[in-house]
């Protein structure tokens, strides 16, 4: 029988994806594909104003619409104690507004109707009277005396301040700066953007009034966490709640939180007795779901005259929107920003982050940011480039001089992160070799002499992924350990149930490869089950590149448990002592390899009548909960070549070289695909993406006409390289990779464009580097990109 008892000769490799079979036939099941008998449709009425008191809500005309089944308002939810829900940052967020609206697009009412067109029509029949209030739009004014207080719902909240947080040694850093030969400072904005997965967020909620069972099909990157949260918020016992994440059309952190629309769908189902589907449109997605970034940063770098980098300092103003809903481990309100020490051997570092409320949508941690590492890497890589310019040093040379050396690992950086492994200079050299860096610099010199402007930009990044050890990291008190269950059936094929949740990363294939590798099976013989909380163990889900570091580790550990149990069964089958067996894709007797048993045969025996030693249970199953001992630290070296037309400000990305090290690569094809996708993110963020606002708080990025995403035409043919430095603490030496390219690419592109503009004396310009911004920078007046031009 095909695959049965086959020796695994390395199941790692570019195995074709098992999940492709349904997607290429158009047979995926995404949330909006779900049709249930009697299903109704929900639509949300949203605030047109950024800040206003609600005077009245009159839904009577909507309720009278012949195809409307229910209209839910804030006061109705309030009577059930559901008008507010907890956020992932220990704040609360309005489900439907009661007293005020606090951002344009905030949820005000929820209509449930027989079809989606009628639900949309009925929105126009709801009459809301608002009393406009002045809006806080510019985060830099949020703490001004007299600024309007947004969160007057919070007792004892006198202003728009959320938190202050710092990391590092301030005194040591000050001392290092004082002793430095060169100090360079720069303000830089990482503008607000949005993950914009191609599939928007949604849920189909089905509450069974007889059994008390609540089933929700939903776009969730963390179905078990959602289940626990629904139990806490809605008051339904958790064992009566089932969350099913079907196929998800991209997550990128957008699908981590629970959104008001999901909760409204649940209430709608409870009130009408029918399933209720709510899927948002694109404007809702861009205007109300978790945005990303919006960090106003001030960076300072101190160095010796010979280019030795001594210290880094950063202060950050974090715009969190109207509710603090950012999704990161609870002890880290600024996420992992304090890894801004980067990839260099620093004496000291210190950062301080202040979070503020503004009249904008909540969020902040999303879009493959690795918990704010995108912001941290952007800051340090821009500062290094600015320092290089100040010193008149080549940016590659400056980096090579200061990169951590392999013998320094494991390395504890000045803000406390322990980087597990890496050979940084080698990665940078590989990138430079692929690019032929010296040739590029020669070409640049020739072009400059002719008045043509090409730029070469470098970025070197260190990530920290795989959150995380339960004593350090939790989200709303839930520890970030992931479970995995493995059952090997009597006929030798296996089912692995994992808690993480793929949104395109290929888990059905790579996790099968992990188990296959450990058990000497073919990946075709391993089925990966995920997404349904009734069928999978608890875990905190997929985001922050944690699937391979945590769930992947769990898969390896549980497979090894099965393998060890199989050893005992094999020993019984072969009538030898377990210690006499060695593993070579099957259990064989040391010194007599023909006496062997593969997993498939062992499985049958384990389910059969074979007598097992005392205390050993039958079957061939195991479970585990993997609590990661530490984060893993993937890293990379990126080089970007751009050509800039100063007459128009247009930027063309000519080449992008990306060398990534994510430790052991289970499936190199999938790893490369992850890198490709993240590099495209960089093109978008660096050149065109921004969620901007005008002075009244109107969101200007509410559609794909203005929130521009990169196409085939802006993305070059990516040139990839790889180094492999295994993680010493991960069971298979792998690190995460899903967000690496999103983290590393924006500074490479920005550094490249600014390198091209060096003859014009441009020191810095903020993303996005649109043609207007580039041209304005050349004139000496780079644009402020987060606010509309007055």
């Amino acid at each position: 029988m095909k695959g049965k008892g086959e020796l695994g000769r390395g199941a790692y490799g570019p195995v074709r994806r098992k999940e492709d079979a349904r997607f290429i036939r158009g047979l995926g099941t995404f949330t909006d594909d779900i049709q249930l008998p009697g299903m109704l449709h929900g639509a949300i009425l949203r605030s047109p104003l950024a800040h206003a008191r609600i005077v009245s809500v009159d839904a009577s005309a909507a309720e009278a619409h012949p195809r409307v089944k229910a209209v839910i308002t804030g006061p109705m939810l309030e009577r059930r104690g559901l008008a507010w829900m907890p956020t992932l940052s220990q704040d609360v967020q309005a489900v439907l507004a009661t007293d005020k609206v606090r951002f344009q697009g905030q949820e005000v009412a929820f209509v449930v109707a027989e079809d989606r067109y009628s639900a949309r029509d009925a929105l126009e029949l709801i009459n809301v009277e608002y009393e406009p209030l002045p809006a806080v739009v510019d985060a830099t004014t949020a703490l001004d005396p007299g600024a309007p207080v947004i969160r007057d719902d919070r007792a004892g909240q006198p202003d728009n301040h959320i938190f202050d947080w710092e990391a590092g040694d301030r005194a040591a850093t000050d001392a290092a700066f004082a002793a430095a030969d060169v100090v360079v400072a720069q303000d830089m904005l990482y503008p607000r953007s949005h993950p914009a997965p191609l599939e928007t967020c949604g849920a189909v909620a089905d509450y069974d009034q007889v059994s008390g069972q609540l089933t929700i099909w939903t776009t969730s990157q963390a179905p078990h966490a959602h289940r626990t949260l629904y139990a806490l918020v809605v008051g339904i016992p958790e064992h009566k709640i089932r969350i099913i994440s079907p196929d998800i059309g991209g997550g990128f952190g957008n699908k981590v939180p629970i959104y008001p629309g999901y909760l409204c769908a649940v209430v709608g189902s409870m009130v009408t007795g029918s399933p209720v589907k709510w899927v948002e449109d694109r404007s809702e997605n861009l205007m109300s779901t978790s945005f990303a970034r919006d960090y106003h940063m001030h960076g300072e770098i101190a160095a010796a005259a010979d280019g030795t980098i001594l210290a880094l300092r950063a202060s950050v103003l974090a715009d969190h929107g109207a509710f603090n809903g950012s999704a990161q481990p609870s002890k880290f309100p600024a996420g992992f920003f304090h890894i801004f020490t980067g990839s260099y051997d620093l004496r000291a570092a210190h950062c301080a982050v202040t979070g503020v409320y503004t009249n904008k949508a909540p969020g902040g941690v999303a879009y493959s940011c690795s918990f704010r590492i995108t912001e941290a890497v952007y800051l340090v890589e821009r500062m290094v480039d600015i320092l290089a310019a100040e010193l008149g040093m080549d940016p590659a040379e400056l980096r090579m001089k200061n990169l951590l050396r392999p013998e320094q690992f494991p390395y504890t950086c000045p803000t406390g992160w322990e980087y597990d492994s890496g050979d940084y200079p080698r990665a940078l050299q590989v990138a430079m070799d692929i690019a032929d860096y010296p040739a590029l610099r020669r070409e640049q010199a020739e072009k400059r002499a002719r008045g043509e402007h090409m730029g070469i930009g470098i970025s070197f990044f260190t990530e920290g992924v795989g959150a995380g050890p339960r004593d350090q990291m939790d989200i709303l008190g839930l520890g970030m350990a992931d479970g995995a269950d493995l059952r090997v059936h009597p006929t030798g094929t296996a089912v692995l149930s994992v808690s993480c949740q793929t949104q395109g990363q290929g888990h059905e294939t790579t996790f099968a490869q992990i188990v296959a590798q450990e058990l000497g099976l073919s990946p075709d013989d391993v089925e990966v089950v995920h997404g349904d909380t009734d069928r999978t163990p608890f875990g905190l889900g997929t985001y922050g590149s944690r699937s391979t570091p945590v769930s992947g580790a769990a898969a390896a550990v549980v497979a090894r448990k099965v393998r060890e149990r199989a050893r005992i069964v094999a020993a019984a089958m072969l009538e030898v002592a377990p210690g006499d067996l060695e593993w070579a894709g099957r259990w064989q007797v040391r010194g007599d390899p023909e006496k062997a048993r593969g997993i498939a045969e062992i499985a049958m025996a384990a389910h059969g009548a074979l007598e097992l030693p005392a205390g050993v249970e039958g079957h061939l199953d195991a479970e585990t909960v993997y609590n990661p001992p530490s984060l893993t630290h993937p890293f990379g070296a990126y080089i970007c070549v751009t050509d800039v037309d100063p007459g128009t400000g247009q930027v063309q990305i000519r080449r992008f070289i990306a060398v990534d090290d994510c430790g052991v690569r289970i499936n190199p094809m999938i790893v490369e695909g992850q890198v490709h996708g993240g590099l495209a993110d960089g093109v978008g963020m660096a050149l065109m993406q921004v969620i901007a606002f005008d002075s009244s708080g109107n969101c200007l990025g509410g559609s794909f006409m203005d929130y521009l995403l990169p196409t085939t035409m802006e993305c070059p043919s990516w040139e990839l390289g790889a180094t492999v430095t295994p993680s010493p603490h991960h069971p298979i030496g792998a690190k995460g990779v899903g967000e690496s390219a999103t983290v590393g690419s924006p500074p490479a592109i920005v550094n490249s464009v600014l390198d091209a503009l060096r003859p014009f004396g441009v020191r810095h310009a903020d993303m996005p580097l649109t043609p207007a911004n580039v041209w304005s920078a050349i004139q000496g007046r780079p644009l402020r990109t987060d606010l509309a031009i007055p």
Partner: protein
Amino acid sequence: MQVPAYVEYEKATSVEHALTLLARYGPEARILAGGHSLIPMMKLRLVQPETLIDINGLAELAYVRVADGELQIGALTRHAQLLDSAVAGEHFAILHDAERVIADPVVRNWGTIGGSLCQADPSEDLSATFAALKATMVIRGPEGVRTVSAREFHTGPYETVVAPGELLTEIRMAIRPGGGSAYEKVGRRVGDWPVGAAAAAIWLDGDTIAGAGIGLTAVGARNFAAAEAEEFLRGASATEASFAEAGRIAAEHCRPSSDQRGPAEYKQHLARELTTRALRRARRRARPAAAGQDA
């Protein structure tokens, strides 16, 4: 995804029938051609017509042909058809330049020339293009056929001279010897509306500019044209200096607004820079007419 409000629907079987339906349903009816300007507006509920009159079956309105010394384009011609038309590209390379940067290849399959012109977006690429080519719009109504110059076709943002009971049927432009044309556009990304764009057409007599047409869009140029710059170029020699000066004059007469695409200052600069570049490219494509040579 957002969805339109309730609307009635009629399918026209001929141009006459379409005009009859327009008369019957009055000013709250809208012509539905490719729908790629109208339907997005309807989904956002920015327009809510009472009746749609579907003219997609009127094959007699989709053509690109040379007749009577003119290039004639039927209003129902799809963008993709115009881009694909060898005869259009042969006489007016600018048409291919512009079509290549309008929207994207899939939208171009269904959106029509007439639909884009009647949408009358202040950033419409074809408005500048036809202004430069000094095209004529042919409009049919209950009283018969009338023509309007491209430069008088638009009366304001999203407004044209096509009255409620009328239908744009054709766009025509004279083919003259010694011509060359080009379109230069800057957008924030491929497929975006222009931040600024310039259309240039020149006709040479030896090294002298016998006639010039300059169209501008998205930069607040009156009638999508740079009449003063055209005036300057008539009789001037076709040199870099002339083109630079024409660009300067064209920019002087623009009144762009600052918005998310860029500040007014930048758009003003683009008007100048792109006019010069378009003229330069048009010049390279122009073949001066010699005595006895066919157009």
